[in-house]
C-alpha cells in the first residue's frame, strides 16, 4: 500500500486539494489492518493518546544536488513541523542516513540542526551513509545509546517496548542489510521476558522486509528476526533507506518505511537505480518529504501512524 502523496501528481488542483485536507494521512492500525483517514479527521480519534513520537529519516546532510540543494533547510522544516504538533511528542526517532558521507562536519551540522530545532530526546540508528570508512565509530561516539558494544539497544516508554537495530554493518558482497548472529542472540534474550501483549516497535535503517532486493532494499537475515516477533500481538517495524512510504502487513507485524527529509527516490524498480529522483521540481519537493507521527492510545495495543508532508 502506498500513500497517494508519494505518487508524482502533476495536477496543481489535486495538489491544492491535498494541502487543504491537511497535507497528510492518518493511519490507524486496528487489529493489524490499516485504515487511512485525512489528517484533519484524525484529531478526535487520537485525542486519548497516552503519548506520541515522531520518526524522521534520511537527512543526508552534505547532499547538494538536484532535487534538493538545501537539505539543512528541509530538515529545519521537518523539525518545525514537529514543534507545531498539538501534542508534544515524547521523543524523536531518526532512522539513519543522518549524513551523506559520514564526514565529521556533516555530523556536526546534523547535531547542530537537531539542537537548534529543539528536537529534544532523539533516538538514532545509523544508515550505511553514516558508517563509511570507520564502521560507524564516529556515529556511535556522537549518537549512540551505549547499551551494547554493537550499538543496538532497547528501551520502554508508556508500556511500549522499543528496539533499535543496526543492519548497515558487515555487509557482504552481493548481500542486503545484515543483523548478524550476535545482535539476533541479544534480541532473542531482550524480548524473552516480555508478555505477548506488550506492543513492540522495532526500528532500523534498511527495510527489515524484502521491499526490492535487487536494489538492496531488504535485510539478509530478517527471517530469523521475524521468528522472535511473531508471538507478539502488535509489532510495528519502522525503517528508512528508500525515501518513500511503503507498507506491508504480515500477521500482527506491520512494516513501514519513511520518507526522507532530504530527497525522494523512485518507486521500486522504476528507472535504472535507486538514486535521487532528480525530476522533482523545487516547488513540488516538499510533497515528497516529511515526518511520521506515531501515537499510542492507552488501553489499546495498537499504534496510530500519521504521515505529514512538509508544507
Amino acid at each position, binding site marked *: 500500500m502506498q500513500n497517494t502523496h508519494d505518487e508524482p501528481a502533476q495536477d496543481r488542483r489535486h495538489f491544492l486539494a491535498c494541502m487543504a485536507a491537511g497535507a497528510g494521512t492518518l493511519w490507524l492500525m486496528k487489529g493489524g489492518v490499516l485504515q487511512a483517514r485525512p489528517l484533519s479527521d484524525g484529531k478526535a480519534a487520537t485525542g486519548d493518546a497516552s503519548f506520541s513520537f515522531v520518526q524522521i529519516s534520511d537527512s543526508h546532510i552534505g547532499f547538494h*544536488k538536484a532535487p534538493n540543494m538545501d537539505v539543512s533547510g528541509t530538515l529545519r522544516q521537518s523539525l518545525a513541523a514537529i514543534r507545531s504538533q498539538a501534542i508534544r511528542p515524547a521523543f524523536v526517532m531518526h532512522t539513519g542516513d543522518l549524513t551523506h558521507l559520514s564526514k565529521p562536519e556533516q555530523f556536526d551540522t546534523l547535531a547542530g540542526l537537531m539542537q537548534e530545532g529543539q528536537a529534544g530526546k532523539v533516538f538514532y540508528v545509523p544508515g550505511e551513509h553514516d558508517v*563509511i570508512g570507520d564502521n560507524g565509530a564516529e556515529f556511535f561516539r556522537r549518537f549512540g545509546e551505549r547499551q551494547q558494544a554493537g550499538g543496538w539497544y532497547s528501551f520502554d516508554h508508556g508500556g511500549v517496548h522499543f528496539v533499535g537495530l543496526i543492519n548497515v554493518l558487515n555487509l*557482504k*558482497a552481493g548481500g542486503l542489510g545484515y543483523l548478524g548472529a550476535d545482535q539476533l542472540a541479544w534480541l532473542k534474550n531482550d524480548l524473552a521476558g516480555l508478555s505477548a501483549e506488550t506492543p513492540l516497535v522495532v526500528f532500523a535503517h534498511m527495510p527489515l522486509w524484502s521491499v526490492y532486493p535487487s536494489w538492496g532494499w531488504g535485510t539478509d537475515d530478517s527471517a530469523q528476526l521475524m521468528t522472535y516477533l511473531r508471538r507478539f500481538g502488535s509489532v510495528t517495524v519502522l525503517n528508512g533507506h528508500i525515501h518513500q512510504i511503503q507498507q506491508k502487513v504480515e500477521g500482527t507485524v506491520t512494516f513501514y518505511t519513511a520518507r526522507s527529509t532530504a530527497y525522494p527516490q523512485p518507486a521500486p524498480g522504476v528507472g535504472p537505480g535507486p*538514486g*535521487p529522483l532528480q525530476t522533482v521540481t523545487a516547488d513540488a519537493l516538499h510533497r515528497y518529504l516529511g515526518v511520521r507521527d506515531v501515537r499510542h492510545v492507552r488501553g489499546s495495543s495498537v499504534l496510530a501512524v500519521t504521515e505529514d508532508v512538509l508544507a
Partner: protein
Amino acid sequence: MNAPNAFKVLCVLLVVAALPNAMRNASALEAGPPKGAKVYQVAIHNFAFEPKNLAVPSGAYVVWTNRDEEPHVVTSAGALFPSSGALDTGDSHTVMFSKPGTYTYYCSIHPMMVGTITVH
C-alpha cells in the same frame, strides 16, 4: 654479512610481514597512475560497475570513477586490495594490481553492486 646489515634485512622482513594483504597484492595511488602505465577504467554508473568483470595483466592500474549522483565505496571482499573512501560524483580510486588472482569487490554502501578484477 655483518651484524648491522643483518639487522636491517630483518627489519625489512618484519615490515613486509606486518603489511596487510591489501598492501602486498596491490597498492592504492592518491594521484592516479603514472605516465605510460597500463591503465584500465571501471565506470560506476547506475548502481553498477562497468565492466562488471575485468581482466588485466599483472602490474596494471585500475581506475574506478563514480559517474552516479550517489556516492559509492569500492571495497575489496576479504580486504585483498585497498578500499576507496567515499567516492562522490566524479571522484576516482586507483589501485595497481601486482599479484595474479581474482579479486571480488563491492560497494560497501550498496552491496548488491559487485564486480571482479582478474589479474593474469
